[in-house]
């Protein structure tokens, strides 16, 4: 290969020669061969940013079952493709290494976390709900029927889906648990 031609194509030289460093002068054989992660995705899911309530549209690109990129959805009449720093960082929310992916258990008076499998944890939680409910059940208060427990309480965040809130309220009501609250109060 012609050495001078090679050096001449070196982006630094081209930029020193006065070509715009943001345009063609920034390109090289390597960058020309790069393809955006979005082009290589297997699937694109239409989603919504999980942070504030503007509700910006997101396109979630995935390859081999992993999220590879999250972009603003240009079709959204609300956000027109834009995302703020939080929305733009939301791929990290999903993929960051600090995410806990197994159940943690702390026994009463314990000093460290222990591990527990999910099915066991679910059974233990169900047992505790039933026991607490039975122990704290109120049939009447001041002569009025109440059919409830004040032994259970719940506080949810406002990133819960409507469907999730619905099942929560439905199940808690059937249990007689009334201290059911949400970030919406706060």
């Amino acid at each position, binding site marked *: 290969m012609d050495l001078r031609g090679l050096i001449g194509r070196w982006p630094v030289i081209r930029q020193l020669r006065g070509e715009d460093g943001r345009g063609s002068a920034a390109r090289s054989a390597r960058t020309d061969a790069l393809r955006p992660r979005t082009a290589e995705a297997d699937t694109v899911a*239409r989603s919504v940013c999980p942070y*504030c*309530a503007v509700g910006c549209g997101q396109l979630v690109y995935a390859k081999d079952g992993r999220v590879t990129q999250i972009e603003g959805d240009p079709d959204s009449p609300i956000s027109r493709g834009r995302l703020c720093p939080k929305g733009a960082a939301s791929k990290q929310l999903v993929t960051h290494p600090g995410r806990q992916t197994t159940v943690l258990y702390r026994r009463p008076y314990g000093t460290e976390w222990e591990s527990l*499998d999910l099915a066991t944890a679910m059974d233990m939680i169900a047992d505790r709900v039933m026991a607490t409910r039975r122990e704290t059940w109120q049939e009447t208060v001041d002569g009025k029927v109440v*059919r409830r*427990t004040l032994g259970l309480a719940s506080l949810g965040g406002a990133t819960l889906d409507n*469907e999730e809130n619905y099942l*929560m309220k439905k199940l808690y009501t059937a249990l007689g648990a009334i201290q059911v609250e949400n970030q919406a109060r706060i």
Partner: protein
Amino acid sequence: MAECHPVGFQWVMEAKARGAKVFHIDPRFTRTSAMADAHLPIRAGSDIVLLGALINHVLKGAHDFREYVLAYTNASAIISEDFRDTEDLDGLFSGFQADNASYDPASWSYEGEDVPREREEQARGGRVHAGSASADQYGSGGPSAHPTPHTDPTLTDRRCVYQLLAYHFARYTPKLVEELCGIPRADFQRLANAIVANSGRERTTAWVYSVGWTQHTVGAQYIRAASILQLLLGNIGRPGGGILALRGHASIQGSTDIPTLFNILPGYMPMPHAELHETLEDYLGYAAGDTGFWGNKRSYLVSLLKAWWGDSATADNDFRFGYMPRITGDHGTYATVFGQIDGTVKGYFVIGENPAVGSAGGRAQRLGLANLDWLVVRDLVPIETATFWKDGPEIETGELRTADIGTEVFFLPAASHVEKEGTFTQTQRLLQWREKAVEPPGDCRSDLWFYYHLGKLLRERAGDTEMDAPLRDLTWDYPEEGEHADPSAEAVLREINGTGPDGRALSSYLDLAPDGSTRCGCWIYCGVFADEVNQAARRKPGREQSLVAPEWGWAWPLNRRILYNRASADPQGRPWSERKSYIVWDPDRREWTGPDVPDFEKDKPPDYVPPPGATAQAAIAGDAPFIMQTDGKGWLFAPAGLADGPLPTHYEPDESPVPNTLYGTRASPARKTYRRPDNPANPVAGTRFPYVLTTYRLTEHHTAGGMSRSLAHLAELQPEMFCEVSPQLAAELGLDNGGWATIITSRAAIEARVLVSARVRPLRVAGRTVHQIGVPYHWGWAGGGLVTGDAANDLLGIVLDPNVYIQESKAATCDVLPGRRPRGAALRALIEEYRRE
């Protein structure tokens, strides 16, 4: 808005590019201020003075949109002669009951009310209503009042609403604004002139607010004050008008529509109360009005009961109304925390929330957590609420010891927003469906999965006792999908939407029946699955639609984008002006038409007059746009529904460094307090806590940081907890930019980096200089965060708005010292010292 709802702010900038004037009213200078035409720094907690002065300006100058006001508001209604204003009673309205700090609202009624039954708001002298945050139920429509009150269309009767308003706000002057808010008269004048000039037939003005308005002991009244102003100027129900609540979380609107809240059921129906709602008939008698769309409440409630208890709910058993537990008062999140400390609450579920650092009164929150039998936390990372027992601040001070804390803790990892499908309801009541992109890793599961499978396990454990009957009979059969047997979110959404006698999805809440033949999980969401299509998943690109974009997602109710849009036309159904034309009556086709779904019965003509004794929507006249109100009017004066008065009144925050110069009653007399040793209040007199403390958010973080402090990009952009102080205060206290300061209240002392900035200005208030200190509340000590810091919420006490039980996090008092806070036992000693003095 530019800070906390950045992408939404693009529309403000679009409006500005087309000539709109933007005013930013905020204690601190932000990115919004930078883009606004004017920034008006205000003392936190004084906004009703400003809004009241704007109302007074409109009334004094007769700038109101008279035709709109006369036709669409209750300006002409005559109020009971028993009513007394705060002007007469030195800051109290008539009906105040000092023994329980609540109001009996009977004297606020429309004159000559011969309501056939006692209204819920008035039952038991208003105690039950206020005692259980019942005003929350007005999230989709107003309380009950007489549908046709006596009126004075000349607006001159001394007891008509218009005159009462003028009397109530007469002392809210530009001078008072200068005195109490710290806003110079000239700045106020510019704002007032701009608002008036930009309202009327040809123009509309919009107000936008966030928790800077709601997190006060008078929060609901802040919004009421804006409503009064907007109604007087004719800015409600019209394009470019309105009052926009900018909600802070993806689905905080959805979380009230389908509430996980103690006092309401889906669609803002009240949770049954033991005293008022023993039977279904009692409930329907008390809850909401009989006229307006709430008049169909039997259909809404019976359809909900059918959705939950299916075939077992029949007319003979009151559709299982008796299966519902009853509330007896305050069961809100803060009452729950005190219940934990007192030992009545044993088990606690925390789902995507972080009260250990995210709720006011952090120490009380953690003392509550430490006294539980068991705790379930579901989140993406082990947040502080899950780890308080090993690394919380009380462990550091020695107040608690890990080995003494008996709480059993389960941390269950959650699926992220892209690992599950479902809907969020964003800030404009718009539901948007999210597709699932990938499966969640490891043991991570959606909260839908968790509650569905927990429900199955609980139902397996249910016995044949009476107590377990609601659990046994519950409809709980959702199709399962995928390797983890996820319940179908679409099936749940379809149940929320509702089905008819033939089992097909309903398309409108008007199709709901009172006889048990329809099922519907949330009446205001009926239509989201119309024609068996998931309407929330619609994604027709915005550029291929009108500006209203009706085919993107789905808004409740019935896909209406502007609420009460009948008001965009004049009483005869013609546009107020060509420029502001939106929904109009087409006399040839005899229907309402426009780019949006009319928020009115489509074929009800403008000249419709309700026959005597009509109920539900039939009682609403053709020229009454506010169809969820029993009288179809926008309420300038609220004859019912509020726990703290029919008109907004300036009260100082629970903690404030200045006196209330308007009335002898300093703070809201009806505010909800919990005076207990674990929730101390700063004394209002004295000089121990001389500064105003206010909390806020940053663009780069989210609430208490559980979803942002663990992200490298966001952690790097905003790495450290800080406090913003003015150069003047920094000089006074010897604070260095980039150095440390300790902020102290009677609850806590926290440390923060000092940001000396002209963005916070000292204000002249009541003849003295008032310094404000701003702190973001995104940090905590751990929580899987890449960046950590002290929690601002530890500084705050728990004192609430009496209508909706939201805490006053936007205005408190504090002291500031240079340097870092003491460690260990010395920290408690410092706080004790402040509390003693």
